[in-house]
């Protein structure tokens, strides 16, 4: 698995890279992939050859989820990796929508890290992944200190 990202109307919402690349390279690749994927029509197959990689993508409402994987990687199972991730987001946020991902991007990252690490599936069980995230949330709530009034209205 080379990278994994979500895009909408050419706007990248979340990106994760599993190979070391410079920022300009990343931007360039993102641009290219977004262009290609957005140009695809419905009913076309979900796999694209790109450079020496394969792009596997799937559209969920207004969001596209794309993975770039190595040539010999299994396309269908990659497609289901995407689906499982969407299921995880959905379960965690409760009918996930794009705004959830925008406002809670750090959570989306945490979930991804629990599910996929270094480009390979770490834990494919939905229950276990969500349990790990919920435990972390518990730690967070305990740790949360009372906030100032200014913070409460979002002024800092």
């Amino acid at each position, binding site marked *: 698995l080379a990278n994994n990202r979500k895009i909408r109307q050419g706007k*990248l919402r979340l*990106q994760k890279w*599993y190979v*070391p690349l410079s*920022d300009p*390279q990343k*931007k360039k690749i993102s641009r*290219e992939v977004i262009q290609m994927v957005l140009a695809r029509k419905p*009913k*076309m*197959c*979900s*796999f*694209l050859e790109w*450079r*020496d990689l394969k792009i596997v993508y799937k559209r969920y409402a207004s969001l596209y989820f794309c993975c770039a994987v190595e040539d010999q990687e*299994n*396309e*269908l*199972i990659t*497609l*289901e*990796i995407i*689906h499982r991730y969407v299921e995880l987001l959905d379960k*965690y*946020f409760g009918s996930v*929508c794009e*705004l959830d991902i*925008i*406002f*809670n*991007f*750090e*959570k989306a*990252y*945490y979930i991804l890290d629990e599910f996929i*690490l*270094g*480009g*390979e*599936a*770490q*834990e*494919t*069980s939905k229950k276990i992944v969500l349990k790990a995230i*919920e435990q*972390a*949330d*518990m*730690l*967070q*709530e305990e*740790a*949360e200190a009372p*906030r100032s009034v200014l*913070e409460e*209205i*979002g*002024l*800092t």
Partner: protein
Amino acid sequence: MPAVSKGDGMRGLAVFISDIRNCKSKEAEIKRINKELANIRSKFKGDKALDGYSKKKYVCKLLFIFLLGHDIDFGHMEAVNLLSSNKYTEKQIGYLFISVLVNSNSELIRLINNAIKNDLSSRNPTFMCLALHCIANVGSREMAEAFAGEIPRILVAGDTMDSVKQSAALCLLRLYKTSPDLVLMGEWTSRVVHLLNDQHMGVVTAAISLITCLSQKNPDEFKTCVSLAVSRLSRIVSSASTDLQDYTYYFVPAPWLSCKLLRLLQCYPPPEDGAVKGRLVECLETILNKAQEPPKSKKVQHSNAKNAILFEAIALIIHYDSEPNLLVRACNQLGQFLQHRETNLRYLALESMCTLASSEFSHEAVKTHIETVINALKTERDVSVRQRAADLLYAMCDRSNAKQIVAEMLSYLETADYSIREEMVLKVAILAEKYAVDYSWYVDTILNLIRIAGDYVSEEVWYRVIQIVINRDDVQGYAAKTVFEALQAPACHENMVKVGGYILGEFGNLIAGDPRSSPLVQFNLLHSKFHLCSVPTRALLLSAYIKFINLFPETKSTIQEVLRCDSQIRNSDVELQQRAVEYLKLSSIASTDVLATVLEEMPPFPERESSILAKLKKKKGPGAVSAGELEEGKREGGEVNGWEVNQQKSEPSQENASSLTTSPSPTPTAMHLSLTSFFFPSSLSQSTPSPSADLLGLRSAAPVSAAPVSAGSLLVDVFSEAGPAASTAGVNDDGFLRFVCKNNGVLFENQLLQIGIKSEYRQNLGRMYLFYGNKTSVQFVSFSTTLKPVDPLVEGGAQVQQVINIECLSDFSDAPLLNIKFRYGGALQNLSLKLPVTINKFFQPTEMSSHDFFQRWKQLSQPQQEAQKIFKANHPMDTEVLKAKLLGLGTALLDNVDPNPENFVCAGVIQTKAQQIGCLLRLEPNAQAQMYRLTLRSSKDTVAKRLCELLSEQF
């Protein structure tokens, strides 16, 4: 703003995100961001110590700004501080920031590593996982150095929590990919392999990725994993769909793990142990059987997961290629998918069948699906699926169905997508040649190809048809007749005119007996196309005309008249003008005998790998990529191999100019004399006569060719390109390195742009022609290069040329860089390439006797004067190819110098403005070991070293 879902508190962040989303314009957004950045900066710099919570919030805001695409150049220190916080969420944000934004600031890495070290030894599993995730995300070498020893211990320790084991396994995998030298499994190997037996499926899932990667590199050390993998797979495959609880995905038991197990097995040959093998075959059969069972769910996830396993199993069956029964079953299964309503399955079935087609056991079974595949080619709506269908037709083609497949591909070409036409053309050309029973079918096919898709017929294709026609006298008459007929069409493609001109120029006499195609009719037919053609084609036609004068003396006066018109001998194009003048003069001065010698029929071409095949390999190679990196240049291993066919006869356009100045090399081959010589213009004056000059006997007879001297240099180009071309095709070779031993070719190519190079060198001076071809149908705007100003507009399909002069002032190692920028459809393209100017371009060959050679060799005996390298052959060790490359290097290749006739020795002097640098070279091939030893001695140590580096990449 949506309700912030769980346990989250950073309201300031949410407000900021809302603000950004409410910005109406990009400018407003940037303004808001700059305001925020200023705020954060002042907070970080302020005297008041920030509490952990604020630090976390600001770091998170910075992260958000970075993810919007803005550069962040501060806050790293604050993020690192968060790592050592005791509060989980602060630590977590700190790690996230580092994972996303890490830079190679070594000061920072040391601090990060310290924090990671603390967390790893904390024995708090959540902290340990965070630290491991960070290592896996960053994966830098410094981290590998710090932790590669520790992580295996964590991975196999008995008291490690499952979740930590999982992270440790994948963390190690990432480090192994970055720094394999630092990750040594050694004593841990067997315990890591036994993770395949772990009770926790998640641990197995994570560990198997690591084991697969390690097995690929050290199959022997890890081979015990095969039997463990088989038994694990067997347990999964035979389990009921509910046995594995949460690891069952839409009624499919553990699909990810199953795929990974099957992938791991593909690192090994079939198991030798009969019982293990039997069990595995049983698994594979079960998987194939399950494909026939009715689905347990209508959900696409169910079928995807099930079929993912099926395709992986088929990949394993193909990998083993030893079970005819399974291969045929796999083929039948894929055959069913060919007509499935899911586009994805059709795509994958076509792709997978392509590999099945190459197995002797299943080739015939694949062939039975030919009609379906042809139908897919015609009716699929997705071009990527059609592409797979075309690939499969190509793969299943053999002598029995070649005619049908070629015909189908040809008819598909008429409507094919532009994006795949060129590849289709190449494939048709290759199949036509490979399976040609009679060559008249071959000629017909290629001419059809030009007629249907002339624009996509690359030079290689039409060069190849000419090579074949010239080499086979049984088809020459037919070819002449067919091109003559094809040219009758009022609008025929320029490539057709080129082939027509070439073939009639050579073999027009074979059809001249028929009054309907008498010499004059042939000439008028060709000439009727002349004015519609581009300069290179016109140049070719002029050469065909002079050939006509030789073939048919009765056309002489007509042709001379044509050559004499102002539009020819005063043509503003110097090449055309030169040809017209020279041919006119040649035809009037030279005696018939001389003419007959000069214009003799082309000798057969040496047999070599089809240049088209090389081109296809190149196209299919990983290099079919877009603009940007130098690596792309490297991947374009192929060569424009056919080019020289043309140069030899009909397109001396640039070559002519180049031969003016390049120094002649010593080994012309007689077969090319008739061609090369007659292109050399009278204005040539050359100091070093080529051995070929006298052979021609032209010097006295025809003042026109008074100095046919550079025949040699042209020929060397011909050879130096020809040899390596076939062998380096498809290899990951630096585009730049391909030019060490040759001067002309394609430096770079992607989907948008092709850069061709022709260059010539003499003494310490050089001239390089760069041709930038726009391969698209859209214009490039703001086109610029760092070399010199150029027209900023490059129309679709157009080519612009730049000429640069080069002077070698002193010896050098680094090549000059060429940067190209242009806009294509609004997107800025930026390209940086090394110009193929290497020190050896300024070689003057030096002939010397054996005695002189060894005397000088001994004089250069100080250690720094010698550079030596022993390396493996990258290409077949063909003597002729080696010779051609060494000549292409620019040195003199010295015969009878080395006592061992297998060895090559060369000598030359590099001319720089500052000084002359003598160099001696010795190349000792060892055919048995497939190795070379290359030794260079030079009066200047840097030169010997540089040449050694350059050359060791060439063989």
